[in-house]
């Protein structure tokens, strides 16, 4: 119940003054720029594994891997780029949010905000929510495209398909709406991460142990939510093809 109330409060807080522009920018920097390198690094390796494994399996089954660039690109755009990004964001940003809010809860800073007449949800959750939504959106785009370029590079150097052949095969399977759906998923996951993390932060038990548990729980719960929501969204989007 508190989760729903907090979520609604956070969304309302986005449209209520004062707009804490600097705080939002700081959080966006933390979410977006701070996670950029680690996400790009991880998705590049995921792309390499995806395309090589696809090629191996295709060669094993039909002795021909000419469709691999298209399949790999589709898999990257529909699942890999978004889910890996979201899970990495959960680990890095979600854990950070949970620990930060949890520490404030434990040290009664949240209560102090209430005493000052400041809504802690609007003060703490709303900037993180908008920052995480935008950051996740930017990161999903960058991750997907980096992943595609990486797959293209691997297919050129290891599978013998030129960039033009990769693009031709990709165009056979991929359409622009795949990127749009990936962006929608990014926005949804970007909404889930701060809400779940802040929720566990608000319900943090006293002591360092409590903060640790809240952080762990937030990461676990966010990851599960992301996986489940990914299934729901993928199933829903399948009706648009």
């Amino acid at each position, binding site marked *: 119940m508190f989760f729903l109330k907090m979520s609604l409060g956070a969304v309302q807080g986005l449209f209520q003054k004062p707009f804490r522009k600097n705080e939002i920018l700081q959080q966006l920097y933390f979410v977006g720029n701070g996670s950029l390198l680690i996400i790009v690094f991880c998705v590049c390796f995921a792309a390499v594994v995806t395309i090589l494994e696809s090629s191996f399996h295709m060669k094993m089954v039909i002795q021909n891997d000419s469709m691999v660039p298209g399949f790999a690109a589709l898999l990257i755009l529909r699942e890999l780029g978004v889910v890996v990004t979201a899970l990495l964001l959960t680990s890095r940003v979600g854990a950070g949010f949970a620990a930060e809010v949890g520490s404030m809860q434990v040290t009664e800073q949240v209560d102090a905000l209430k005493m000052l007449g400041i809504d802690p949800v609007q003060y703490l959750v709303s900037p993180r929510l908008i920052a995480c939504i935008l950051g996740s959106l*930017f990161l999903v785009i960058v991750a997907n*495209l980096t992943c595609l370029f990486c797959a293209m590079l691997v297919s050129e150097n290891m599978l013998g398909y030129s960039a033009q052949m990769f*693009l031709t095969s990709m165009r056979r399977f991929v359409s622009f709406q795949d990127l749009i759906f990936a962006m929608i998923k990014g926005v949804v996951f970007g909404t889930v991460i701060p809400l779940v993390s802040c929720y566990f932060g608000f319900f943090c038990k006293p002591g360092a142990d409590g903060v640790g548990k809240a952080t762990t729980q937030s990461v676990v719960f966010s990851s599960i939510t992301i996986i489940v929501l990914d299934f729901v969204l993928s199933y829903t989007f399948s009706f648009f093809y």
Partner: protein
Amino acid sequence: MKVETKVGLLAVLSLVLILVFASMMGMISPFSNANELNIMYNYAGGIEEGSPIRVMGIKVGKVKKILFDPTYKSASGEEVKLRIIITVDKKAWSSVRQDSRFFINLAGVIGEKFLEISPGSTEKPEFKPGDYVRGEDPPRIDQLISQGYGLAGKVIEMLNKNEGSVTNMITQLDKLTTNFNKTLVLFDKTAQNAEFSRLLKNAIKISDDTAYLMGNLRSKKAEDTYELVHRLLFRLEPVDGPRIKKFFQEEGIRAKIF
């Protein structure tokens, strides 16, 4: 660098990457170097927007748009209801002539559809951008299967109705084959017989001699001989019977003496 600038750079990078992706998908092509043509079909056989266009097997463009145009009538009065707008690179534009033909073909392991343009003859003029052309409708496999299915049904029905006749026909055919086989065996045995071989050899010799004779009869010498005989007969014609009789009697007596 300020935080705002760094965040702004990330946003700009995302936007640029979206544009790059759109360009990769062929949705935007700011440096396009292609002309458009409208190809009319009644059945497009599963071609899609973005399908490649090939001239002599080389990709030179893509299907830009597919439109339903129920009111369109060609210059010959034919109703053609499907309009496929294609782009053809300018480098291949001069190969596409007014007598070029537009086929929908299959390629690749997964049966990718593409539009093949046969190169036209140089005597015919080039198309103008935006011209309307009638394409060659691909064969409908579904109709073919349906017709084949109907045909198979009719054959089965006919067989069921005339079961006795068909059985009889098969028996007769079997007998005919057996008899034919026996005849062949007999012929083989006869061919191996010595007398028959001699007969055959003689027949071959006669045939050779006849051919030689006929060849000689057609020669210049034979023609001259024929002419001589003809002249002799012409000269003998006025000679009366008693004088010939007398001549042969005298000749006969002379022959007896000598």
